[in-house]
């Protein structure tokens, strides 16, 4: 029990044969990433028309997709932590508010939410502005990128709240009791004992959320954001070659999601203490 080998058996690899040689340590997941990248490179170099042209045309969209995903995700983490703590709060108002938010948002499809934020929300603001006679509100126009970030954040924040709540609840009660018995305040116990332990628990589902968000961000193309999907549609509208366009777009999404998955598992490994 006391003496454990420093390296974990298999080092987290999918296959491990004790005493096996290097061959057994090839990670099949990296193999998949390589396969997809090679496929994309082959398409682009062997048939530069249309694949290279597609890639050049949508590259701005890739940047938009990645930026929207990353920026939303930062807000989602903050909102999710607040929502999760709210769900667990002893304050009934806070708890009720957080629960209402989670239940409402989870019951409405993301696409409908995005459309609501883009088309309904501005009209609502304008109406309230007219009523209050605030000119800056009357002139309010939906900014596509901001709307996309708000829509994704509000929706995914609800799911993230549930992940955070479950993560915090998964820490044994004794940890909080031990912390409090040492004189730590509730806040200190959360900050130094409960949350650091929760991070390890929630990291895998949070990673899944990031990848799901990356894919769902394609929905923002309906609210006039020139993301990867929308750029693909624009290219198709002028060149009429759906097979090539959507295969290329799919490959680009695949490269991004597969790389994210590797990033997540690297983070998981880094956050594991010795067991």
């Amino acid at each position, binding site marked *: 029990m006391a003496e454990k080998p420093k390296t974990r058996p298999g080092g987290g690899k999918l296959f491990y044969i004790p005493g096996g040689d290097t061959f057994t340590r090839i990670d099949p997941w990296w193999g998949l990433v390589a396969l997809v990248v090679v496929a994309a490179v082959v398409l682009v170099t062997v048939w530069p028309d249309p694949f290279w042209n597609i890639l050049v045309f949508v590259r701005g969209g890739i940047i938009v997709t990645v930026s929207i995903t990353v920026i939303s995700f930062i807000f989602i983490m903050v909102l999710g932590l607040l929502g999760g703590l709210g769900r667990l709060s002893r304050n009934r108002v806070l708890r009720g508010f957080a629960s209402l938010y989670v239940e409402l948002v989870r019951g409405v499809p993301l696409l409908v939410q995005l459309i609501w934020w883009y088309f309904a929300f501005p009209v609502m603001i304008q109406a309230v502005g007219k009523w209050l006679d605030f000119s800056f509100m009357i002139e309010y126009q939906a900014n596509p990128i901001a709307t996309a970030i708000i829509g994704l954040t509000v929706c995914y924040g609800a799911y993230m709240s549930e992940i955070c709540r479950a993560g915090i609840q998964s820490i044994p009660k004794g940890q909080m009791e*031990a912390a*409090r018995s040492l004189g730590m305040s509730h806040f200190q116990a959360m900050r130094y004992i409960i949350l650091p332990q929760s991070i390890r628990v929630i990291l895998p589902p949070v990673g899944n959320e990031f990848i799901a968000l990356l894919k769902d961000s394609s929905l923002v193309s309906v609210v006039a954001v020139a993301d990867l999907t929308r750029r693909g549609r624009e290219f198709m509208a002028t060149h009429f070659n759906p097979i090539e366009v959507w295969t290329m777009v799919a490959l680009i999404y695949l490269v991004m999601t597969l790389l994210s998955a590797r990033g997540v598992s690297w983070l998981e490994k880094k956050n594991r203490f010795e067991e």
Partner: protein
Amino acid sequence: MEPIIHIENVHKHFGRVHALRGISLDVYKGEVVVIIGPSGSGKSTLLRCINHLEEYNEGRIVVDSTPLDDTKNINVVRQEVGMVFQSFNLFSHLRVIDNLALAQRIVRRRTREEAEKIATDLLVKVGIPDKAQAYPVQLSGGQQQRVAIARALAMNPKIMLFDEPTSALDPEMIKEVLDVMLALAKEGMTMVVVSHEMGFARAAGDRMILMDEGQIVEEATPDKLLTSSHERTKQFLSKVLNL
């Protein structure tokens, strides 16, 4: 002399269960009080009320002249009262040294050097100086419990509470934990111990209390209580001692 723990007519309800039914108890400085009783008798609940991990519904508890009824006092009292749990409850994401140092730094506001010096000395005292850099999961149950005792001691408490500290341990590890507790008792620490370790009670206990159904049934020196003629005490002891 004023008692360091004063418990007066304390009642505690868990929903419909009346867990404590009017407990009154005084513990004086330097005393070792051992509480025994069947499971569900309220002994752990009573212990947890002393540092307010459990709220009581009625009555009064005063620890080191600080009444527990004001929530502002609770963190003050908890700094003076160390607690050792049945399931150790070491912070699993922290190394042993940080388990001992963290609360010293953020509650007692000691510097890292100070806190780690105290932690290192305490690890020597509980006999595991070589485990400072280990994580809790790498330790045996007995070692974990000794770390837990050291972690509580690092806050320089005036009182130590032990909630069945050896019941989750393998038999061969019980002694190493009891030895630490015995040494602590010899140094004059005020201790309230919920435990059925009769050897420890005899060797270190000044007073022994039998609880049943949320009440104190009998209270005497260990030798007297273990040979008591009280019907309920005899009945309980016959079960515990014949195990």
